[in-house]
């Protein structure tokens, strides 16, 4: 992906990226992203989403996932 080179992603990183890529331009809140990452009854770690986003940005470039202050995260349309 990045510059044509394959980038290894963990399962959860992939799940989070997929959730964002399914609706480019849409903002997903932390709660909605957590729903994608965890099944019913699984315990949610408090800063899991931030951690995964940080990891994805490091691997794919900082501009790919944008933080919308106070609301959530999004992948820009056409990115």
């Amino acid at each position, binding site marked *: 992906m990045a510059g044509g080179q394959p980038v290894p992603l963990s399962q959860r990183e992939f799940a989070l990226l997929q959730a964002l890529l399914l609706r480019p*331009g849409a*903002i997903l809140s932390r709660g909605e992203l957590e729903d994608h990452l965890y099944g019913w009854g699984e315990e949610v770690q408090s800063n899991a989403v931030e951690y995964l986003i940080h990891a994805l940005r490091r691997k794919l470039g900082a501009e790919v996932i*944008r933080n*919308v*202050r*106070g*609301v959530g995260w*999004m992948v*820009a*349309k056409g990115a």
Partner: protein
Amino acid sequence: MNPSLQRRLSRALLFSIAGVALVAGVFSFMAAYDEARELQDDVLHRMAQLVERVQERTPGAALNLHVQGEEDDTRVTIQTLDGAGAWEAQPGRGLPLALPTALGDGLRTMAIDGATFRVLVRTTASGTRFAVVQDLRLRRELARYGALRAVLPFLVLMAILLLLVARLVRPLFGPVTRLAQEVNERGESDLHPIAEAGVPSEVQPFVSAINRLLERVGQSVRAQQRFVADAAHELRSPLAARSLQAERLAQVELPQAGRERLVALRCGIDRARQLIDQLLALARAQAQAVPAPADASVSVQAVFRRVLEDLMPLAETRQIDIGVVGAEDAEVAAAELDVFTIVRNLADNAIRYTPAGGRVDLAVRTTASAVEIRVSDSGPGIALAERERVFDPFYRAAGSDQVGSGLGLSIVRAIATRLGARVALDAADAEHGTGLRVTVALAAPTHRGVMGALGAG
């Protein structure tokens, strides 16, 4: 100062009442005065009769008599004219009176020793002539006193009438004052006719005329709005055609310069399309659209998210940090499109008028009476003098080089007016007077139970 009907009516009534009371008073004074004098003449006659009767029964009885009541003013003197049984002289009381002996029978007024007297001369059966005399000065005083007593009730009544008139006239003008208040409190787009029920019949023609005028103004406003909507609609198709032609031109092999100019052309077409869209939005907002269903309610945070999704590309191009402050959500009683259009236009303006690197915040809070949506930015703000004018269509703040439609705030104001919401502008940074903060106060839905349910979800 304009003439006041109330004051004129009061004054006219007061003068009429005072005039009538004065005339009535003068007449009753004169009538009472005359009556008192007649009564006193009557008394003289009756006294004379009494004297005659006494003379008939006991001829030769003393005729000279000085009758005096408890008060000095009821003094009557009876005196023979022939000197028979003459008075003992009583110089202190001016007796006997110096009456001329040649007086004929009858009633007359005459002067004796510098004073005026009323004198009745009679002759008894035995041929004795006598006079019944009363001092005229005392008589006049008596008459005047009686007349004044007759006038006094009039004066009291007049004072009461004056108070009554003042009390009665003021409430009569209440409906006129209320009418003025009702018209005064109207918004500029509130053109429904004034209720004619309960309006006094004198004012009704005026109210009817105003209602006809309101109707004509309403028709002309609607015609104007229709024209704007129709014009914008008509402009859409040719513009869409230009857009398509530009699209097709882009597929043609073009030199570098041509391609650059094509980009500028497409940008221009885009801006024109946005302007027309805004014109249509304004026309829609101004039209008295079907009111939203009574149970319409929309989550403000959901609207914020849609607006942000819409505007993130613009915010990123202009390097504006746009976001939501606070996690609290609130429901407002309005159609979603209306709330979306308000927030989108406010946020769009904030992004456009804030310099690169600036910040735009969206926030919502619930007050006791309303739900307040706030959009604030770190831009230059709007000078106090311009705050009312920025709501005018196509008005742009001085010194701004923005390419917005100039319709954003007009649309916001139009929708807010239709929803009965208030729009307030002030400085986001009150200390330095910079930054713009727009507050829109919307009504909260009446059914509050829904909020909790959605908030939990």
